[in-house]
């Protein structure tokens, strides 16, 4: 009996000491999420390794929930009206439905079409010109205008500090109630970085649990020969910057990538967007100039504006007859991920009218 008792005591002692050591180690990594419900990053089958792996920002349920609340909170904007979610609407794959320019931006020279948000963890750079080099710092652009940045971030922190809910959520996410810009940004990245789109009909076809119609099948082949070099599977973008011959809007004077690199060879180049969810994310292109997928497809046929930086793949345009256009569009429509568009997890947590949608 005694031996058993001693064994137990020794074991307990060991466990206790071990936990002490582990604790002293883990408290050294101070800015990591402290939330106690770890979440696994979703990496769909067939996807490459993500670029953003939540290494300095441990993904937890608590951090995600905080990010979700922040994403949908209008108090993050100056006048309280514009949350991230007001420009990035879930039913439009987190783009702005039906508006070329989202309301609320100050800086008229950077007026652009809101980008649909998904699979962001696979991106190295953000915005149409790739000017943002990290998912975590991206929100600073919409949240603040460059000159008054300091005050604005301060005001947001002051506003959030007043809310008991937020103090509680920051504590459960980061270990204490302190609200800082860094924590706000990390929490937002937990939410935005978790948005994954990989459950469209196309994805189910790939898995063998759905079949394409003959139209879709023919469209898939047309896509593979004509579009895949810039919009390759599975992300449907190669994340490069290219000039596809959109004529310069002389009112906006947006030269795209050149604004970031200062190089004339980058003039009129814009980030290749994903083709996933384009059936719900109109209007299209960096300035939202096209209202329909058909208009985009026709652009590659007869609207290409030649200039020195025009992509070599598009020198002769890509033309489709009417039947082919129908096929191609049928395929592009298989890229809509209705699971994501209806996912409760990514919806506005305050939206009580979300009952008609399955909570999963």
């Amino acid at each position, binding site marked *: 009996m005694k*031996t058993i008792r*001693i064994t137990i005591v020794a074991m307990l002692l060991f466990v206790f*000491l071990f936990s002490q050591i582990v604790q002293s180690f883990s408290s050294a990594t101070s800015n990591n999420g402290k939330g106690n419900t770890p979440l696994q990053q979703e990496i769909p089958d067939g996807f490459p390794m993500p670029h953003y792996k939540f290494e300095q920002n441990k993904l937890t349920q608590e951090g995600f929930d905080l990010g979700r609340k922040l994403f949908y909170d209008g108090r993050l904007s100056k006048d309280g009206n514009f949350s991230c979610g007001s420009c990035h609407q879930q039913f439009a794959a987190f783009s702005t439905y039906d508006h070329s320019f989202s309301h609320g931006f100050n800086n008229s020279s950077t007026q652009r079409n809101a980008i649909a948000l998904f699979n962001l963890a696979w991106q190295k750079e953000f915005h149409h010109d790739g000017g943002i*080099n*990290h998912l975590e710092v991206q929100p600073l652009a919409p949240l603040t205008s460059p000159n008054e*940045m*300091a005050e604005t971030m301060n005001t947001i922190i002051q506003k959030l500090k007043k809310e008991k809910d937020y103090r509680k959520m920051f504590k459960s996410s980061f270990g204490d109630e302190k609200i800082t*810009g860094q924590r706000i940004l990390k929490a937002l990245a937990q939410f935005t970085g978790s948005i994954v789109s990989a459950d469209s009909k196309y994805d189910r076809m790939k898995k063998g649990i759905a079949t394409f119609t003959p139209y879709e099948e023919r469209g898939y082949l047309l896509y593979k020969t004509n579009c895949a070099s810039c919009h390759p599977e599975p992300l449907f973008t190669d994340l490069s910057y290219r000039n596809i011959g959109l004529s310069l809007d002389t009112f906006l004077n947006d030269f795209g990538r050149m604004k970031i690199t*200062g190089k004339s060879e980058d003039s009129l180049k814009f980030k290749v967007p994903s083709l996933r969810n384009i059936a719900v994310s109109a209007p299209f292109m960096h300035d939202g100039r096209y209202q329909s997928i058909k208009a985009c497809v026709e652009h590659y046929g007869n609207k290409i504006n030649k200039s020195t930086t025009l992509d070599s793949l598009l020198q002769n345009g890509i033309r489709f007859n009417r039947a082919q256009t129908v096929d191609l569009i049928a395929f592009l429509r298989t890229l809509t991920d209705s699971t994501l568009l209806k996912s409760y997890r990514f919806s506005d947590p305050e939206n009580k009218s979300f009952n008609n949608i399955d909570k999963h």
Partner: protein
Amino acid sequence: MKLRLPLLLFSLLTLLLFSFSNSKVKPTEKGTLVLQFQHLVKDKYLSFDSAYKNSIGEDFTVSKFKYYISNIELSNSNTGKKHFLQDSYFLIDEEVVASKTISLEIPSGDYTTLRFLLGVDSIKNMSGAQADALDPINGMFWTWNSGYIMAKLEGSSSYSKSVHNKIEYHIGGFKKEDNTLKTIQFSLPQVVKLDETKKALITLEADIATWFSNKYELPISQYPACTIPGKLAVQFAENYKDMFRIKSVGTN
């Protein structure tokens, strides 16, 4: 009963291990080095209320002057001993008196050379949301073209053609040919001896006049502003990299 001894030994051993794991972090002896930054225009100390003249003869006033100091290293050119301050970033801001004096814990020893980076290294420029000196709240981060402003000078001049005669220099950029990072190195005029009882003080002066004329002549009349990375920013950085000089080294 037979098992009792080994078990006791085992628990003792764990205890021992635990105390070892704690004691191995025994600190090396350290001394305190204080770096103090003073700002001037030529031979006059900077004040936001005064007007100055650059070497081109243009008048100007200053309303903001701040810059990053990072990657500080102390070394001894005789012994090869080196101490690099990992992950330490300081924003020196004329407006915030306390920011102009930074206090560093350095392993005891004799040092002959001080080296630091004027700016924020490229790794930290690409590592996402940061805190403290690197918090974007400090107004030293470009949000539309991610990256830190390494040094900022604002004010006004009758030679400026900008609105309200403003002058505005936000110098930054860390990529390839746009790189504005500058390593500053000084052989100290006397050996700095650091140990637990001695505090050393190095006073550095930074002369703003260098911004306008040094390697390049950058008249206000022609360049009242520079707020994006690029060739002009690189020229300003080339100029201001020589703004520092060591005023004094002392111990107490």
